[in-house]
């Protein structure tokens, strides 16, 4: 990785040309991370296929393209964002809209909800709550191999900040809608920080949408701190057009007896890469990681999961599923790491994939790395088709083949969806998946772009 490809040079140049502009607008504390992150990025570069974590994902189709970078939010854009309304009308949530990676409000940049929760702009939070902010920001998003995380730290300047104080239970989820919209091909980055203090309980929904047909590249990093006994769920719904590339890196740090779940539902998107890092740093912590993707045309979806059992007596569970149609490609990379001394670990992982056509391709790489002996760890991975016997069984009960196939595929996908605890969202997802499987979802939901 010594010779730096042209691709990396481009982003290095981007940093050098714009760092003053970016720093000028960001809080001083966020700026203290930039130089070091830039150093690391220039060493690691944009991950190539030689990088073990990106073995099956070719980023060059999206990274090797000339984008305008979005560094400065414009007021006119904010007005557009204000107009956006989520289609899931019965979903009762605290909504936030993020436009091109910025928190675009003309009013207050950081608001307090009645229960004492703070939601708002990351940059604003760094200035208003330095103590809390400095305790967590940049502490969990670490990587020795993935340059994109450092690229984000070096250049991202805004995103969502959520702070849930001790003991607060939020019955309404927080919904973050990430919109990308522009008149030109655009590269943008954002950074989120979510802090759930001791004994708190809440969920966050992150929806990714594209509002215009241009080529987009988004590189996001989310850091989550989950305190003792806290419960936290993150649900990500990705519904972007085929010309959009979305890279998300989520780091969930868990303290003692906390329970978290992460759920990535990918319905549409040109190139999607979801990296989820679960760090089980307190005894008795439980983490659940789910993922589902439905890919067709030339789409590529890559789910990367890393569960790190640092301390004894933690439980983790992963379930990832994929359906591949047309010429789509998919990748799964799941790793369970049990560190020395992490006795009493229970870790499970399951990855099932269905390939529908001969042109689709699936690569999966489940891994176990275990350095303690009193553990129960297992993983299973399959790549195959719909069970012919099951198909026959349903047909023999008078249901036609097309319908039977749909039922089986829906059941396959539902195993992931059923883990969404928010009912209206779960129903909506079931609905969307059904439409998607029927091929009726040719237009992304709540998207104004027709993507062929």
């Amino acid at each position, binding site marked *: 990785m010594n010779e730096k490809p042209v691709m990396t040079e481009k982003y290095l140049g981007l940093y050098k040309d714009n760092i003053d502009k970016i720093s000028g607008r960001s809080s001083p504390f966020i700026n203290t991370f930039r130089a070091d992150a830039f150093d690391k990025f220039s060493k690691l570069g944009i991950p190539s296929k030689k990088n*073990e974590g990106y073995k*099956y994902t070719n980023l060059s189709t999206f990274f090797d393209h000339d984008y305008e970078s979005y560094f400065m939010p414009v007021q006119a854009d904010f007005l557009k964002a204000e107009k956006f309304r989520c289609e899931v009308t019965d979903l009762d949530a605290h909504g936030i809209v993020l436009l091109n990676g910025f928190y675009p409000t003309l009013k207050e940049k950081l608001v307090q909800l009645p229960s004492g929760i703070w939601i708002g702009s990351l940059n604003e939070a760094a200035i208003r709550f330095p103590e809390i902010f400095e305790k967590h920001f940049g502490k969990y998003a670490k990587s020795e191999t993935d340059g994109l995380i450092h690229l984000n730290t070096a250049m991202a300047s805004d995103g969502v900040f959520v702070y849930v104080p001790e003991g607060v239970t939020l019955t309404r989820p927080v919904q973050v809608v990430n919109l990308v919209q522009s008149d030109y091909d655009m590269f943008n980055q954002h950074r989120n920080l979510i802090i759930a203090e001791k004994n708190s309980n809440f969920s966050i929904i992150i929806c990714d949408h594209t509002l215009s047909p241009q080529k987009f590249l988004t590189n996001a990093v989310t850091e989550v701190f989950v305190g003792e006994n806290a419960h936290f769920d993150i649900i990500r719904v990705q519904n972007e057009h085929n010309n959009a590339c979305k890279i998300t890196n989520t780091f969930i740090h868990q303290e003692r007896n906390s329970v978290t779940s992460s759920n990535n539902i990918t319905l549409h998107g040109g190139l999607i890469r979801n990296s989820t890092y679960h760090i089980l740093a307190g005894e008795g912590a439980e983490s659940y990681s789910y993922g589902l993707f439905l890919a067709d045309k030339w789409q590529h979806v890559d789910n990367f999961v890393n569960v790190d059992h640092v301390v004894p007596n933690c439980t983790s569970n992963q379930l990832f599923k994929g359906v591949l149609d047309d010429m789509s490609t998919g990748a799964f990379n799941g790793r369970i790491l049990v560190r*020395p*001394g992490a*006795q009493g670990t229970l870790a499970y992982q399951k990855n099932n*994939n269905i*390939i*529908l*056509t*001969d042109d*689709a*391709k*699936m*690569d*999966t*790489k*489940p*891994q*176990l*790395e*275990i*350095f*303690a*002996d*009193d*553990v*129960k*760890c*297992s*993983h*299973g*991975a*399959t*790549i*195959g*088709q719909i069970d012919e016997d099951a198909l026959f069984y349903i047909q023999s009960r008078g249901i036609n083949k097309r319908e039977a196939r749909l039922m089986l595929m829906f059941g396959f996908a539902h195993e992931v969806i059923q883990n969404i605890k928010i009912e209206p969202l779960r129903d909506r997802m079931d609905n969307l998946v059904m439409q998607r499987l029927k091929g009726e979802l040719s237009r992304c939901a709540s998207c104004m772009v027709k993507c062929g």
Partner: protein
Amino acid sequence: MEKDQDKIISDVTTTEYKYGFYSDIEMDRIPKGLSEEVVRLISAKKNEPEWLLEFRLKSYHHWLTMKMPTWPNLKIAPINYQDIIFYAAPKERKNTGNIDDIDPELKKTFDKLGIPLQEQKHLAGVAVDAVIDSVSIKTTFKETLAEMGIIFCSFSDAVKEYPDLVKRYMGSVVPYTDNFFATLNSAVFSDGSFCYIPKGVRCPMELSTYFRINSANTGQFERTLLIADEEAYVSYLEGCTAPSRDENQLHAAIVEIVAEKNAEVKYSTVQNWYPGDKDGKGGVYNFVTKRGMCKGENSKISWTQIETGSAITWKYPSCILRGDNSTGEFYSVAVTNNHQQADTGTKMIHIGKNTKSTIVSKGISAGRGQNSYRGLVKVLKNATNARNYSQCDSLLLGDKCGAHTFPYLEVDNSTAIVEHEATTSKIGEDQIFYCNQRGISTEDAIGLIVNGYAREVINKLPMEFAVEAQKLLQISLEGSVG
């Protein structure tokens, strides 16, 4: 029970490597180091034809451009290739092939190892090719086999007597550019076994090669080529030991198998190189490239390995399933104790239609041993109805050891069914308690459980080896529950 376990663990860690003796044999060694001259010298010593020398030189020059790979999950001390003797052979007496002409010291060595150089009655079912350091000493039952048209001889003899066959197949499965150690082997390989089973012949006895490293500072680089022509069947065994020494010795071998239409090859290994002492000092580096090609329709290659020795094992016996309906199998038990490390697994490349592969890998880690399974199942676009099933289990004995699984599944065909599952756990206290309760001592209980655990693989071994393998497991692990 706690006390019992401690005692058993200490028993296990102090079990001596019983093949660690050294025989004082008059040896013919070339100077240390590797250079073009050394490659030429090895070739000259063996009176090789020009084409083989060219092959060696081509490999050597390619090797110079390569770097040792760093991707495996292993800690390897740097290897100084200029500090290794690349060729060492027992001084030749008269080469008549007669048993009486073999150095009595040599004969004694093999007797001590339990390998009969004489065609003894009670082991009449096995034909042995004995290789010490760089050369093959004796091949038994050569004549009996020749009657059926089976060629079983040392690689050097094959080069002289059957150059056409060697030329045709050598490097066809593992090309000289394949990987760092395969290329090194292609440049300096000394001897090995060659076997050809003609059309329609079912080999009546087990063929076997026994490898012994004896000299100090030498590397062992042998090459085995196994060809099963149409409708042929052969079962082949391989065993190996080395003296206990403080320095690490390098063993970089190549095994190539070609199975033509309807042929079946069964290749079994019981690997018991010197594993180093309990502090991880010394031991053999076992870096081997093994690959089989199912060339014709309905052909089958089956690998079975019991890996108990070596300080570091790094090998992936693989199958290229090119013929339609061909089958590849891989059964492995890998044991790491003390400071041993193993990074082993297989590659199954499905190219032909209706190809099937099965992988069963059982890792056992004890002491500070690190055991990794690394495997690839690749289904190419045209491999319609390909089927794979993989199962990788790891058993952990002791809290300092590690077990890792790195499977790669790459599927490019919608009719393929690929399944992989892996589990990692230790021997359950309740399992041991259950045995104790029925009057079985903790030690026996663990032996029972480990043997049951490895049984699926051991059952695949030919009878003669299964017994040895079972004993080996017992020695290496009996009772070391953590």
